[in-house]
């Protein structure tokens, strides 16, 4: 079965310039430059992490799961090591993370978070469960007592991918020392005071550097 991609775009070049390897290609030009590309079935279109995770959730697709593991397993391990686990423990928590990913994939909602962020939060929770003797009380998104959000902000109406792109750009634009502050805060969870103590910059500077991004 061939995969068909259609567009009414005035800019057919956008898709043609992408990374897709195209074998059978027909371009039908009409007066509005409509085009149609057909890709033979043996061409592998790389699936995004979102697509892979949705497949795992909807059809328990093991192949998609293996790809997701190959793509993000090493990242989860890196995250565990960054926040203080030795390689063996990091490996173990990474495996447990993906077992949870498999079991909870059906709850993934791409409108609420990207697959990468979703897996990051699962990894974070697995690590807490594993390392802490204390419990970590967490918000229950299904709690009937939850006060609903009835004032959608522009942020909420924005596509997840747009938010991610914007935040990515603003992080990329940061000078190295400011990126370190952001990393310590959002990944390692240090408080403003702890960051100030750890890298020897005044508390006010930590706060203003975080306000640039947050």
């Amino acid at each position, binding site marked *: 079965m061939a995969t068909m991609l259609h567009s009414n775009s005035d800019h057919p070049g956008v898709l043609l310039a992408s990374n897709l390897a195209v074998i059978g290609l027909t371009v039908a030009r009409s007066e509005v430059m409509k085009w149609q590309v057909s890709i033979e079935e043996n061409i592998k279109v790389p699936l995004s992490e979102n697509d892979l995770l949705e497949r795992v959730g909807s059809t328990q697709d093991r192949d998609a799961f293996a790809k997701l593991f190959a793509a993000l397993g090493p990242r989860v391990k890196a995250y565990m090591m960054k926040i203080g686990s030795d390689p063996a423990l990091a490996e173990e928590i990474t495996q447990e993370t993906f077992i949870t990913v498999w079991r909870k994939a059906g709850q993934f909602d791409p409108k609420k978070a990207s697959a990468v962020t979703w897996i*990051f939060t699962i990894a974070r929770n697995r690590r807490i469960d594993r390392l802490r003797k204390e419990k970590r009380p967490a*918000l229950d998104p299904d709690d009937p007592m939850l006060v609903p959000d009835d004032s959608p902000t522009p942020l909420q109406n924005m596509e997840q991918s747009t938010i991610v792109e914007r935040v990515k750009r603003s992080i990329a634009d940061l000078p190295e020392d400011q990126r370190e502050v952001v990393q310590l805060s959002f990944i390692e969870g240090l408080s403003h005071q702890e960051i100030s103590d750890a890298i020897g910059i005044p508390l006010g500077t930590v706060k203003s550097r975080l306000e640039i991004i947050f």
Partner: protein
Amino acid sequence: MTVNHHPHDDLLLSYAAGSLSETWSLAVASHLSLCPECRRTLELAETIGGILFADMPDERMSLDALDHVLARIDQPSSEAASGNTQLSLDKRAIVSTTFPRVLREYVGHDVDDVPWKSIGGGAYQHLIETADKSARARLLRIRSRKTGPQSRTSRKRVDARSLW
């Protein structure tokens, strides 16, 4: 319920990064249940965390890691085996009319059944047990002054700061 006091971003960020202690997490999670505004802040913090996570250089996994994981997803869930699934279903059946679920599970009662202790001035408190030695959570029930004696508001306080 309208919430007028909000946790500082610093607390929300630590909660999002998973480094907040049990007591503070309980206070923040209870607040989040009642405050859509802070939930949006949390979502943004998690998105930023996810982006920084995505940028990390990979660490090589062991060659048989995937095989291990695949073997384990075929086993019945340890939760199901130990009956935890049933437990969590039972928990869902508990109806809470005042407290957010996360708080209800800690306290064990809804507002009217809490073993309140009077601390004078028409105020009552209940200490919440946690394993956290760094802070103590106490739930305060304070009679509203503006309305009649039947109408009460409950407040929860952690350390000196009120998040409700």
